[in-house]
């Protein structure tokens, strides 16, 4: 016998019997319960503070991955004791299963693991994904869940992240920029209209102001009317709709009080149908 090479007759073959299967199922079930509990506990903790919410939620997919990885290692560890014949048989079965149509499930799971480390987005981010826009509420091994502004839950397979562009509005930050648009008649007092929009943004109860997060109003000249785009940061990504509503209500009330008129609807439709407005200027 050559030294250093194990005598294959001494390797104990690994038997997959009912005990092994039951043990594996039990281990995976315990891992599932632990992962759900950890996610629940971290979610409850994150909701206690707006500022810490995204940081705490970031640990949810990481914690789940660690728990599942430990469970899989425990379950699959004995595979390393398979004989070469058993290993070959197992590989054959795995290849056949993948080929039979669950390759996408496998791709999603691989993407889910990669996402834990690469983080194109985190739980709590507002993302746009193909036709869907919403807050990321859960990043699972197989899929990501978004909650849209209309409170619908959209489940997105993870592998789509790697084949599509994802737009992230806040990238882990609690604050986020929001744009609110207004249209005024072409002959209106534009300086006054801009001033009203700017103040409407600054006084909102949802606004966040800092050295890096100021307020901007852009003016675009369109045929027959002017478009004002007000940009400001909000103090919590969840206040996006409330902020838009708050600013819109106050600004429109002021416009009405001061006789700042909305454009003629037909002019706006004609412009939207085929023309391009002139370049915007910052006010």
């Amino acid at each position, binding site marked *: 016998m050559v030294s250093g090479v194990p005598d294959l007759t001494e390797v104990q073959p690994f038997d997959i019997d009912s005990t092994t299967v039951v043990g594996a199922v039990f281990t995976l079930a315990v891992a599932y319960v632990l992962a759900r509990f950890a996610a629940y506990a971290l979610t409850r903790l994150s909701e206690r503070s707006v500022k810490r919410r995204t940081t705490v939620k970031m640990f949810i997919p990481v914690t789940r991955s660690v728990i599942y990885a430990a469970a899989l290692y425990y379950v699959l560890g004995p595979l390393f004791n398979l004989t070469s014949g058993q290993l070959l048989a197992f590989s054959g079965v795995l290849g056949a299963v993948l080929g039979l149509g669950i390759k996408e499930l496998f791709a999603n799971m691989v993407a889910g693991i990669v996402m834990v480390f690469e983080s194109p987005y985190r739980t709590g981010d507002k993302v746009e994904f193909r036709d869907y826009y919403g807050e990321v509420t859960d990043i699972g091994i197989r899929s990501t869940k978004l909650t849209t502004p209309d409170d619908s839950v959209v489940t997105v397979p993870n592998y789509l992240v790697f084949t599509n562009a994802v737009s992230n509005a806040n990238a882990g930050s609690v604050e986020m920029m929001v744009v609110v648009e207004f249209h005024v008649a072409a002959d209106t007092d534009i300086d006054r209209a801009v001033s009203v929009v700017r103040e409407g943004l600054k*006084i909102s*109860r949802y606004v966040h102001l800092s050295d890096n997060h100021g307020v901007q109003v852009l003016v675009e000249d369109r045929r027959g009317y002017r478009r004002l785009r007000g940009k400001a940061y909000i103090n919590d990504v969840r206040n996006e709709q409330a902020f838009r509503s708050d600013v819109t209500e106050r600004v429109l009330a002021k416009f009405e009080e001061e006789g700042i008129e909305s454009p003629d609807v037909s002019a706006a439709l004609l412009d939207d149908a085929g023309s391009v407005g002139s370049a915007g200027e910052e006010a």
Partner: protein
Amino acid sequence: MMERAYVKTVSAKDLKSLFEDEFGRLKQAVDAGKNTALVSEPYAGRDMLLDELSSNLGGAERVSFGSVADAEGDVPEDADVYLVEGCRYLYTRRIDGFENLESFVDGVAESEATVVASWNLYAWSYVRQATEVDDVFREDIVLPELGTSSIAELVASEYDITDFKSDLEETREEGGDITDRLPAGIRFRLGERSDNVFEQITALSGGNLGVARSVFESRTWEDGSEDDVGELSYEDAFMLLVVLTKEDVEHQVLEEVVSPNSLEKSIRKLSDAGYVESDDGRVTLRPERLVNAVERLERRNLVW
């Protein structure tokens, strides 16, 4: 207007000794002709520090805005130095609500006088981002939190502390130096759990002398700092923020910035929770709940 019993007995001289560095910087800024903002939390004694500055300078004029209605923003033109109190009333959070503040700032910019304006910390944090006020008030001096030993000596000088003599001796021996060097959040959490009453008072007051007095008078540390109010709605939290920035505000001002339909309900809720007192058409922030109010608003990212 509700009487503020918690600041009336401290002499300006005592305050000057507590904020020696800040007073020195203030005096230097005035001597150099720099328009200066003196900023502090509510009830921390900034207006009394202006009293000391006023007697120190001799010919300084005092201008005081007692409410939003009073604050028209004009700067008189017949003195070299103006000390202005109540700047927090110069604006309201509504469209065109900054007119008086802008008029005041323009007046200061055009005047040759030196102006020291006292500001509520949370109002200042907002207006310096929302307007160009800090282009004119280039120097801002923020009153710091006081340490345990300062709070202990202040309380001991004004109240009968026979029951707490041993705690005072312990504070004097330790000097409060070790915990005073820790970050504020950790320091105050440790203080809340301390057996020493002065450390508890310092924690519950956030090192604010006016709040510390109020805490001592109402024996708040005996109730613990448990927050049993539950979560405030966003509307209620925003109203609390407005009262925090104004300290003492008329109902009609609140009507302009919060939803009129929920005004009375929100005032009632905040009053039941102990954050405010409502009397004679005015709502006033209760000093002993200041620290808790700020913590709640920070968690919501409403103060920054």
